[in-house]
């Protein structure tokens, strides 16, 4: 029970910091969006982009994990401080809006929560991942980093020091973040990943589904919750080797699942928003942020996002005969090119020897 409480605490911590960062981001972008779930989703990408910016230099220079953990604590305190300083005047407004929302929308909200809880119970019930090698890499990397107080310098399968850092996961910092949490909380990596991270991804995925509903059905909460129900139900009956639904139910803690169930749907959500309102700069800035923040979560974003951006935005630009749309799409591809080049360079040209 104690460990479950810690895991729920980690989820709450993620949601709070994601909300704060999302709120700050929307304030900077002068957005009028009021949705809390949308803030959490954007904030999640801000959170991991920030972590990536701090982690990568320390990873490349072979610094200890404890140093990263300390610096990350300071960064989170700074985020909280900035948030309180900038947003304290709106606390009362937010509280009132929250109260109003809970009193007016209690039934859809309750159903949404029940749907999410049902999925959390399902993944918590299950131990099988059907991905023993992948799991051994991801969780093994975290447990080895915590044990050796290093950042991904050891082979997760053997525990032996690598000659050079693994280029396949060099730019990915999601596992390093889990290692930081395990280090700070003294929590076993298996519990942090398979319970806390898995819970978080299930919640975020459902929040994206809810946002899809809000986008499709003109902000109707009832229809949005209905969409979440049907999507969850379809996912529950979509077992196959590589469906995103299978990843969600069996390997929710993996970076690949974040790509399939959070990053790609988030990009699609922003595509829907842009298709509806192409002139809104905020959606483009948010899309750029999501693309930029995704590589630290999973490096497969480097090739999947250009595909997704292209199949969404090229037809849109062609059908609208819009050059500016094409130019903005190209701008969103820049981070993919940048990270793609970094991936190829660290694979073929520059190695980081331990």
């Amino acid at each position, binding site marked *: 029970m104690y460990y479950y409480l810690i895991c729920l605490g980690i989820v709450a911590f993620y949601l709070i910091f994601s909300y704060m960062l999302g709120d700050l981001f929307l304030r900077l972008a002068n957005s009028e969006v009021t949705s809390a779930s949308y803030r959490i989703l954007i904030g999640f990408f801000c959170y991991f982009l920030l972590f990536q910016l701090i982690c990568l230099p320390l990873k490349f220079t072979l610094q200890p994990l404890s140093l990263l953990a300390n610096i990350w604590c300071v960064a989170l305190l700074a985020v909280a401080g900035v948030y309180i300083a900038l947003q304290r005047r709106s606390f009362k407004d937010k509280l009132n809006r929250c109260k109003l929302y809970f009193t007016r929308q209690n039934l859809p909200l309750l159903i949404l929560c029940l749907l999410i809880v049902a999925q959390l119970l399902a993944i918590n019930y299950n131990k099988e991942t059907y991905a023993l090698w992948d799991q051994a890499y991801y969780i*093994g990397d975290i447990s080895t980093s915590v044990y050796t107080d290093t950042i991904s310098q050891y*082979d997760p399968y053997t525990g032996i020091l690598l000659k050079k850092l693994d280029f396949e996961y060099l730019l990915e910092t999601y596992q390093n973040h889990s290692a930081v949490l395990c280090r700070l909380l003294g929590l076993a990596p298996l519990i942090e990943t398979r319970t806390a991270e898995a819970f978080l991804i299930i919640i975020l995925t459902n929040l994206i589904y809810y946002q*899809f509903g809000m986008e499709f059905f003109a902000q109707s909460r009832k229809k949005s919750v209905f969409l979440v129900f049907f999507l969850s139900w379809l996912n529950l009956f*979509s077992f196959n080797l590589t469906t995103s639904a299978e990843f969600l139910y069996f390997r929710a803690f993996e970076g690949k699942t974040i790509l399939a169930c959070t990053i790609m749907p988030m990009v699609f959500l922003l595509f829907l928003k842009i298709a509806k309102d192409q002139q809104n700069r905020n959606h483009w800035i948010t899309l750029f942020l999501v693309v930029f923040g995704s590589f630290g979560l999973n490096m*497969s974003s480097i090739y999947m996002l250009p595909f997704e951006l292209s199949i969404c935005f090229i037809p849109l630009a062609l059908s609208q005969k819009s050059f500016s749309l094409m130019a903005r799409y190209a701008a969103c591809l820049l981070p993919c090119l940048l990270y793609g080049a970094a991936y190829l360079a660290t694979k073929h040209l520059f190695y980081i020897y331990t």
Partner: protein
Amino acid sequence: MQDLYGLGMDFLNQAFDDSFTNIKVFFLFYLVALAVFWFRKNKELKSWFVYPALFALITVFNPYLMVPIADKIGLAPRIRRIYWLLPVNLVLAFALVWLTYRLTRHWQRALFAAAFTALIALVGESQLSYMVPAQNIYKVSQETIEIAAMIEEDAKGNGAKSCLYADVSLLELRQYDASILNTIRRKDMTKLIVNPADPASVQQVLDEKNSRRTLSMVLYYGVQVKPSIFKKYAKKYQIQYVIPNKDKGLGEYLELMGYQALGETEHFVVYKAT
């Protein structure tokens, strides 16, 4: 050109099977939904769902285009998840909600939703039936915890423990306790194909004089190489514990070389080097 097409189609078919073998009906419904959106002449639905799918068909799912590019940038094995690009379940869920709300009466909506909920359950493949109940909060097998405890108790917390194991289910060991090191690397296990009944196949591995591959062959296939060879390699890696699967029948072989059984679980025995 023909080869390229064949290669591309093989790849796309394999990726399709990996994604939809059990839920081909969902994919069919998705295509029907796209066709309906197309014929409804709704501009928004077309630009959300139909145009991206059509564009994907001539680019990402084009056998002449995708595989050569993937090969060129060294991503061919990863591209197999390209069907994630098609929002099949999202389109179906959208269509179901949209259809439900076209009905005016509550009872009609409830009936429609219930019917489709049942249909999905009927034609889909349930994830629940593939789930295995977790026995502990770590979501690993009890054997993993028992083996780690045996080693820990024997080593009395004295730093890293050098072990030798080659069973895939023991990959959980390092996730549970990172102080347990394994001599066998991933490539030693995944790339080693030996026919233990064929002396030539075994000899071929021995001739390579690759210590890790030889040790993998012993632990994974149960091939009993000369004790002197095993001892030499075990010494090279300073192996303290050997964890064979009971099925491999290595008990007597290891005991003759002086290994002492520390304890056993349902499938494994933990031996300690003396």
